[in-house]
């Protein structure tokens, strides 16, 4: 029993923290957020050089072969730094290829993706269906037609992994005939959303994997995203504590008042709970996969709430300045709020938890 990061995992964390802090200073994030494409080419190249594109992808296909715990470590830091990057969507596409593609398909798409040469993103939600995880309405066939909405980072992706009603995944290259990509404005300017319209598109490949092969991919994506939200909360908490020590009103730092300090204590509680849930689930993904679905839903449900509530509380600690565009907090609130709704919101995941616990399953148990 050792529930903490190992030295190696700690090293990944400090490398990531250092790199991201120097790369994504506030001015740079604002530049990227305000840019046309929202894509940071230089930053992506450096991340790829660090091996992040393939961090949790198999070594034999160009990845680092690390686990979900390491992935969670990295994504917590991505959130902490508020890094605008297609790393999340690209990682999920890579995990899906690793889970469902043939060797030939892996050679063609997974290896270059893991090495940072090609970028992929999943195209999941159908405009004419419910915006819920693992529920697709687009018909599979020789050609694909329909509208996929809320596709992450599609503008600068090379290919999409399009989900169909049978649970299958199809590789569609962005430049293929009949593909139209249009940008949607997200509440979160640090991550871009697109609609991908397919009009009789012939997919480049259909993966042999079945729908169930992608369930663990979905659960690991939830863990990565929950880790990112935990990082957002951690940073918002630190900003608040700093501010509460500095800011003087009525002749004292505001952090001496219990209305403020107790709010900060609440933020700490939610951040720590979120982190525990995330690493519990990340550990389950690597060591006890049968308990991953429940653990991932617990983590995503908790972090969905904490990921925006903690930044929201941070704005209250900051008072008026926290409500300005000039202050960075609104970016954290917006990213946290968008994360909360992505890959199943808290309510959706709590319903999964209710399913398990009311059926008598228990969380991964040691002592």
């Amino acid at each position, binding site marked *: *029993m050792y529930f903490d990061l190992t030295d190696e995992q700690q090293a990944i964390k400090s490398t990531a923290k250092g790199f991201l802090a120097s790369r994504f200073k506030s001015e740079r994030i604002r530049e990227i957020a305000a840019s046309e494409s929202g894509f940071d080419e230089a930053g992506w190249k450096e991340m790829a050089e660090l091996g992040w594109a393939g961090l949790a992808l198999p070594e034999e296909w160009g990845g680092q072969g690390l686990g979900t715990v390491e992935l969670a470590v990295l994504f917590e830091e991505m959130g902490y730094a508020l890094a605008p990057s297609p790393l999340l969507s690209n990682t999920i596409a890579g995990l899906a290829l690793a889970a469902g593609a043939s060797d030939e398909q892996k050679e063609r798409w997974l290896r270059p993706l893991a090495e940072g040469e090609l970028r992929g993103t999943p195209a999941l939600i159908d405009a004419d269906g419910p915006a819920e995880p693992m529920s697709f309405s687009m018909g599979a066939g020789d050609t694909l037609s329909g509208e996929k909405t809320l596709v992450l980072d599609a503008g600068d992706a090379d290919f999409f992994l399009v989900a169909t009603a049978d649970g299958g995944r199809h590789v569609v290259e962005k430049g293929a005939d009949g593909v139209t990509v249009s940008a949607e404005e997200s509440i979160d300017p640090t991550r871009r959303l697109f609609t991908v319209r397919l009009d009789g598109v012939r997919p480049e490949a259909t993966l042999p994997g079945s729908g169930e092969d992608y369930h663990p991919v979905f659960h690991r994506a939830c863990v990565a995203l929950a880790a990112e939200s935990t990082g957002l909360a951690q940073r918002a908490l630190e900003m608040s*504590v700093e501010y509460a020590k500095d800011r003087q009103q009525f002749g004292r730092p505001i*952090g001496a008042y219990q209305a403020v300090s107790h709010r900060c204590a609440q933020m700490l509680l939610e951040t720590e709970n979120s982190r525990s849930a995330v690493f519990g689930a990340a550990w389950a993904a690597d060591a006890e996969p049968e308990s991953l679905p429940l653990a991932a839903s617990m983590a995503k449900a908790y972090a969905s709430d904490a990921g925006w509530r903690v930044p929201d509380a941070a704005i209250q600690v900051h008072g008026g300045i926290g409500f300005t565009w000039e202050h960075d907090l609104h970016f954290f609130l917006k990213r946290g709020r968008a994360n909360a709704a992505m890959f199943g919101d808290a309510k959706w995941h709590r319903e999964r938890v*209710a399913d398990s616990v*009311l059926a008598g399953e228990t969380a991964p148990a040691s*002592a």
Partner: protein
Amino acid sequence: MDLTLSPSEEEFREEVRSWLQENHPGPEPEAGLDEVMAFRREWQLRLHAAGWAGISWPKEYGGRGATMIEQAIFAAEASRQEAPSPANVLGLAMGGPVVIAHGTDEQKARYLEPILTGEEIWCQGFSEPESGSDLASLKTRAVKDGDEWVVTGQKVWTTFAQYAKWCMLVARTDSDAPKHQGLTYFLMDMEQDGVQTRPLVQITGEGEFNEVFFEEARVPDANVVGGVGNGWAVAITTLMNERAGLAFGAISQIQNSLGRLSKLAQETPSNGGSVADDSYFRQRIAQLHIEVETMRLNAYRGLTKTMQSGIPGPEGSLGKWQWADINQDLTELALEIEGAYSMLARGADHAVSGGAWQYGFLRSRANSIEGGTTDILKNIIAERVLGLPRLR
């Protein structure tokens, strides 16, 4: 990162599990507190005979010298199987560890064994009517008289005082010193004329706690623990011990309650189905499970940290706070599930589950007060974990 137990820890768990299964004395008697205490004394003797009393204590003092993980396993298993608590719970969790840490050789020889057997029950004389959260402001006075101290004052919230032989008493021995420095920790014999105990009836109707009055009660100098004027530091050790031992047992207890809550939801009819089909209740039950899981994982993180550094950190305050919140939410939710039947008191003919949830609801109101109020825990977290400035 590894959330599994080692083979030897698994073996230990098996040993605990099967011993408890074979020796579990069944539910506690529902009669009065005297019967309950007699039952618990017997249980403690059985625990002691098998080497399960004082498992955290070093072997040389009659304990088992269990590792922190083993202590966690034992607490979790005992709660999971709803084993009764031993009669001398405060002596085992606080009194013994304090004597071991701060006591003289004579004190160790005199006090430890009867704590383990439950022959002598211990109680804790810290809180006073005017000194609750601000414990160091306490006013009970001890004045030196030859080789004795004469104690006058009042303590409150004293659990099991009516059964106790010894009281862990913190009293003021120097009223001129700064408030934290003028205190001394005594072991007070409760069986004397100068000590009067009166049960304090709480909102559940029970008398779990007492008021204790000292009228020139006497303590020999030999019963000072840790030196005159060091009472605060010695008292803090007991409080740390209290917290470190509680978490894992408390988590198992809540997991049991959650199981009962799910059952209650499944058995309570609603809209042609059961409450367990109702989205509102499903959401709330799920949220409780999630929070208990975060509490359990936090406790493992805390344990890992404590094993590295040797001392429990202030983060333990988070767990105590969370435990109180969850226990209160849980019983509130049970009452909501029961609906109109939640009006019935414990023991009423038509009370659901005998009214256990109504009792639990009332009892859990104290969870955010006893052993450090949630409001004070938030202060501790703000000041000692987050480094925010003190108001005082």
